[in-house]
């Protein structure tokens, strides 16, 4: 039993790392723009499908680099054309807008690529297990965790050491003051949305390599991202990181003892956090309100 628990603990950290990647993009958009992007999962699906199209021409590795960039450009354009019009309105407008956008993107995928699942081919060697004992850790899963670590490190470096990144961080804390200091807040929001979309696209390619593609894949993966953000705390990227890992581990460990509740347990954690500490584990006070 101890071995089973330890195996699932490790497995939960791997799954959690993937949740982190999805949730960070979502969290960035919420933090700066106060938009809960319900279409985030569909950006993820677009990233996966674009990689599917590109792979025959530039291979998996090329698609892994290019697809997130194309997803980021798409996110940038959508923010400019659609999302920016609801920033000054009540939150319900952005909720409804992104909710509808999600359906549109999903139907676009279904229309272009059909409703049937499609495989994204990854290099054959990556499907093998690292060792016979740790059979559940394939090279692809190791690679996914490595990509998440690099992406998270890169994101934190971007936010800390680049001018745009510092402005995004400052805007997260007080957007009005940042605007008063002469920063082009409109452009800042666009860049930020593009970075969030880039992370969604990257998660989409990685997810497609593991799970294949279907138009609904975003729906299946998006809820853990929301919960990671809420549990970790709105306004805190470190909190999102912690939230993603926590729900990944909780879900994996629950499968050992009560598998039917593997999904439900993450909602229970969210409910408990909201009851006991509404701002989330590391969230800014007042952000959720």
């Amino acid at each position: 039993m101890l071995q089973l628990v330890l195996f699932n603990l490790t497995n939960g950290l791997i799954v959690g790392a993937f949740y982190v990647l999805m949730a960070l993009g979502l969290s960035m958009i919420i933090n700066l723009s106060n938009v809960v992007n319900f279409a985030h999962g569909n950006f993820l699906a677009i990233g996966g499908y674009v990689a599917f199209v590109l792979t025959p021409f530039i291979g998996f590795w090329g698609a892994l680099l290019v697809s997130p960039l194309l997803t980021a450009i798409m996110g940038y354009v959508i923010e400019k054309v659609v999302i920016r019009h609801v920033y000054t309105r009540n939150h319900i407008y952005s909720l409804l807008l992104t909710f509808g956008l999600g359906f549109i993107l999903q139907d676009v995928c279904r229309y272009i690529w059909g409703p049937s699942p499609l495989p994204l081919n990854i290099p054959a060697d990556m499907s093998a297990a690292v060792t016979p004992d740790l059979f559940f850790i394939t090279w692809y899963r190791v690679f996914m965790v490595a990509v998440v670590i690099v992406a998270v490190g890169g994101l934190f470096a971007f936010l800390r050491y680049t001018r745009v990144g510092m402005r995004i961080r400052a805007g997260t804390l007080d957007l009005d003051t940042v605007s008063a200091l002469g920063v082009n807040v409109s452009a800042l929001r666009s860049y930020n949305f593009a970075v969030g979309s880039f992370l969604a696209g990257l998660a989409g390619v990685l997810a497609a390599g593991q799970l294949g593609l279907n138009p609904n894949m975003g729906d299946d993966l998006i809820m853990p991202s929301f919960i990671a953000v809420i549990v970790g705390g709105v306004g805190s990227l470190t909190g999102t990181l912690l939230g993603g890992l926590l729900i990944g581990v909780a879900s994996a460990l629950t499968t050992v003892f009560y598998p039917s509740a593997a999904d439900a347990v993450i909602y229970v954690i969210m409910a408990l956090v909201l009851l006991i500490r509404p701002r989330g584990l590391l969230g800014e006070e007042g952000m959720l309100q």
Partner: protein
Amino acid sequence: MSRNGKGPILRRRRVLQVGAGVGALQFAAPFIIQARGEQPVKIGFIDPITGSLSALAVSEVEGAKWTVDQLNKKGGILGRPVELLVEDSANDTGTGVQKAHKLIERDKVDVIMGDVNSGIAYAIMGVTSEKRVLHIVPGGHTDPITGKDCKWNTFRTCNTTAMDAAAVTGELVKKFGKKWFFITPDYAYGKTLQENFVKNLKKAGGTYQGDMLPIANTDFSATLIKAKAYKPDVLLNNMGGAAQLNCMKQFVQFGMAKEMALGGALYELETLRSVPKEALTGWWVMEWWWNQPNVPAVKQFVDSISPTLGGKKPSARHWFAYVSINAVKLAAEKAKSLEAVKMAHALEDLELPPDIALSPNKIKYRAGDHQLMSDLFVGQVQPAGAGGPDDLFKVESVVPGEQAAGPAEATGCKISWPA
């Protein structure tokens, strides 16, 4: 009267236009009456065109549209054209029920068909029986539909989970052993399927463990870790659609295919097409298969429908829709009526002609429970063979429906007819 005190509201030209319109209607009236005489037979088709089961639903809808086209070319049903009204249940029970109400109350359909999702099909039964509309379930498998909760107006084309489980259990026990691990979706279909497997396995003296997982589960690593620790002879993958595919992929990636056999009740051609070559393995049941060399009508059907499917072979889902819609025609023509009660009586024990059955044995909707006694194709999934990219399944044995289903009395179905 004047408009703003400046002129007449009804100008002379307007009066002439209205007059001309009324006159034209007099000539048009006979055509309207004639059209009423050719009022179409309406079939309402509810399926989850969006959602995790959409690939299966789209195949059923493709099959239904093609069949309706064919029927209309041959004079329709009772000499009337057939109209297919397709609604998306979005894989949501509430939406499915709402669509059933809409089709019956507003569109006045003669027959309802649906849903791929067992839970939705079961919920729609409540509406169709209340409204007294003939209901054919082409592809929802949970047993109570033609079991303890059967209705006079409901017929089912796809198998029950009991039939699927009974057909494959013997082969798996005989070839691999009696210690099994189940991975099963936690909803109506999965629960009844696992119950039936367990019942058959216990009869054979077997033991088991298993996990019930959410229907759209994406990551199976935690459950597969448990399965590996249990060291079963067979891992039963009862998931459906994309979940079934992901489970198989991870099963193979984790190297478990070398340690245990893989099997399950039901596999769909739609899912098989997406399985990587290395994961095409295991023993399953196909509810209909396009490659039946000993049944000539099958080739004719496949050759006719394939061009409309982009050259792909039809799946069991296409066949479900084909049989279900043709069953309406057969029932209506036998009853000489579209009244639900008369059609339901006509459909009982009605043997399907070979060009509709497309199966090695004779099949019919059994009177005792309204379940189609179709053949079950037990065999192995394989990488694409000589028959082309859809040659992904090798039939090892055909189990007659009556043999897999057992007696109708044992299903718990007691049909009570309206007064």
